[in-house]
């Protein structure tokens, strides 16, 4: 919308400043170059913007030899012809970009089909303008298509990625040397309390994984919390059952629980069969876990990870059994149900913070700190960006554009 308005404005200025009629009737002064930021086999042809009148057409001809023959590669009606400013990622923004038409040429017409351009070969280009059937051809220019090694349109992405990496890695290495502050997360004590109650009652604790795979942050946080839970159940000699949906998550959980039991000197109490995949389909998983909740009546359900629609089934059935329920998920669509059916709920990133808080692991703490710094930058960018954009200087908006 804005872009169109801009272009309209520029066209208006041009109409006043330039003798547009003249432009339309003289052959366009074209230039050609390799198309930036691409895999090659394409050249970009530019020429000054003319008056956007109907009936005027630009024609781009390409030849492999300076003496021809020239083949038609592109044909655009003047009002529809793109200007460089339409692609700010590759060509930038500005008055000059607004006043220059361009077309990317990757092939040209032959009698029988189309011929693609090839890398590292010189091509000759001439742009013609056709008005009322009369065609005026401009001078010949040339360009060599190349495969590019770096995408400059992604520069802002690269800079932010590098900066974030450095901040997070630096925070982690800092966290290894000194204690880092994290605000208290209400509800974490509930896990200890629940394990304590299960021990008193001599009943099991059930740890329910979400549905996501092992490389997901929520699953990793869940496994970290599981490690803590397992250390406690090993010490208290309480039965721990772990249900998972993903086989990889199951294997990782088995090793995590085993290590926890070995760590507190109770390898004998570890039983691999208590950690299993309960279902390979979302609802067969939910049904199996529900069935176990109703049949085995654990004293506590700890549901951690990423959940989908099964959350309500699990939480509602779970609350019917009277068990203490603690949930943690970054699945925000499911949070309303956990919030209304569980004794404690860790919302979104609180799940990660809790896993860091519990484990006091420098990598988790440092990472959280790094993300906090990232968030501070985002907040600053949003506030200053809006302020400047409102004042008419949208350069932060432009610098943060995704191309």
């Amino acid at each position, binding site marked *: 919308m804005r872009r169109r308005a801009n272009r309209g404005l520029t066209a208006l200025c041009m109409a006043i400043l330039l003798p547009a009629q003249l432009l339309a009737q003289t052959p366009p002064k074209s230039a050609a170059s390799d198309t930036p930021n691409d895999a090659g086999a394409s050249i970009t042809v530019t020429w000054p913007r003319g008056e956007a009148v109907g009936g005027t057409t630009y024609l781009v001809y390409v030849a492999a030899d300076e003496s021809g023959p020239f083949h038609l590669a592109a044909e655009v009606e003047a009002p529809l012809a793109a200007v460089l400013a339409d692609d700010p990622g590759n060509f930038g923004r500005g008055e000059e970009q607004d006043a220059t038409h361009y077309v990317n040429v990757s092939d040209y017409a032959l009698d029988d089909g189309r011929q693609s351009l090839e890398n590292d070969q010189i091509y000759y280009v001439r742009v013609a303008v056709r008005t009322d059937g009369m065609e005026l051809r401009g001078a010949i220019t040339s360009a060599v298509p190349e495969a590019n090694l770096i995408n400059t349109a*992604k520069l*802002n*992405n*690269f800079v*932010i*990625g590098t900066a*974030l990496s450095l901040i997070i890695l630096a925070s982690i290495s800092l966290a290894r040397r000194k204690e880092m*502050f*994290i*605000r*208290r997360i209400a509800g974490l004590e509930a896990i200890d309390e629940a394990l304590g109650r299960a021990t008193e009652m001599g009943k099991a604790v059930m740890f329910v994984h979400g549905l996501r795979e*092992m*490389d997901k942050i929520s699953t990793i946080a869940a496994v970290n919390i599981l490690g803590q839970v397992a250390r406690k159940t090993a010490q208290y000699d309480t039965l721990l059952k772990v249900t998972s949906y993903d*086989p*990889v998550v199951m*294997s990782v959980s088995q090793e995590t629980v085993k290590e926890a039991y070995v760590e507190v000197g109770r390898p004998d109490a570890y039983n691999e069969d208590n950690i299993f995949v309960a*279902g*390979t*389909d979302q*609802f*067969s998983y939910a*049904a*199996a876990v529900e*069935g176990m909740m*109703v*049949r085995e009546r654990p004293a506590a359900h700890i549901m951690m990870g990423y959940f989908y*629609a099964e959350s*309500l089934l699990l939480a509602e059935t779970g609350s019917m059994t009277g068990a203490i329920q603690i949930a943690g998920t970054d699945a*925000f*669509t499911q*949070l*309303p*149900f956990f*919030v209304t059916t569980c004794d404690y709920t860790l*919302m*979104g*990133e*609180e799940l990660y*913070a809790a896993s860091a808080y519990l484990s006091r692991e420098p990598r988790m703490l440092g990472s*959280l*700190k790094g993300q*906090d710094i990232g*968030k*501070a930058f*985002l*907040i600053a*960018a*949003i*506030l200053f*960006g*809006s302020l400047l*954009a*409102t004042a*008419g200087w*949208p350069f*932060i*908006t432009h610098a*943060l*554009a*995704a191309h």
Partner: protein
Amino acid sequence: MTRDSMLFLGFIGIFVILNAILLVGGYLDMSWTSLGVITAAGLTVSLYSFLYRDNPLFKLAEHIFVGVAAAYIFGIYWYQSLYGEVVVRIFGIGDDPATMTQRLLLLVPSVLGLLILTRMSVKIGWLSRISFAFVVGVGAGFTIPRYISAFLLSQIEATIRPITMDVDGLNLLLILIGVVSVLVYFFFSVEHRGVVGGISKVGIWFLMISFGASFGYTIMARLSLLIGRIRFLLDDWLHVM
């Protein structure tokens, strides 16, 4: 006999009688389709019996479903991926046009895939770590730049627009306040007291409205599913609609 087992028998009796009426009345016939409808109706009602309480019928239906689902998905993976793509390509079955290079390259994920299966063994299970290193490493690598672009850059770009003195501008300002205050709520480096506490409180309000929206929408979704099942029972099975 307990009350529950009487209910159970009564339920089965009614189900049999209903189907008999439907068959005699000509609403259902002895085709595979009609048999399917009766099976599906039986399973549907059996699963709904869980609403009364957990019972053998529910467990039966549940376990039938578990088995069928596992084998169904096996079929999909086998025909559409492992056989249909991997085996056919590597062994050049039929009209497969894959070049020798393509076949050799395909051996790499196939071997890595077989290594994943070593996780079933205690002895050589560690071999699967090589495959998981690949899956997790490539996944992480693909994620970083794409999340920066699709989520950080694009979403912030859409937030920082000129704020005008009209309704749209006011809405944009509210979005701005909401985004910032929610970010502050999920800021873990400072205790939520004073100004920060106030801002994070605003963040909670925004979160609660969005949770309310999600709650309402989810209720809508579940009711839609129930409508679908009840339509099946009333229309396809009982033919009363």
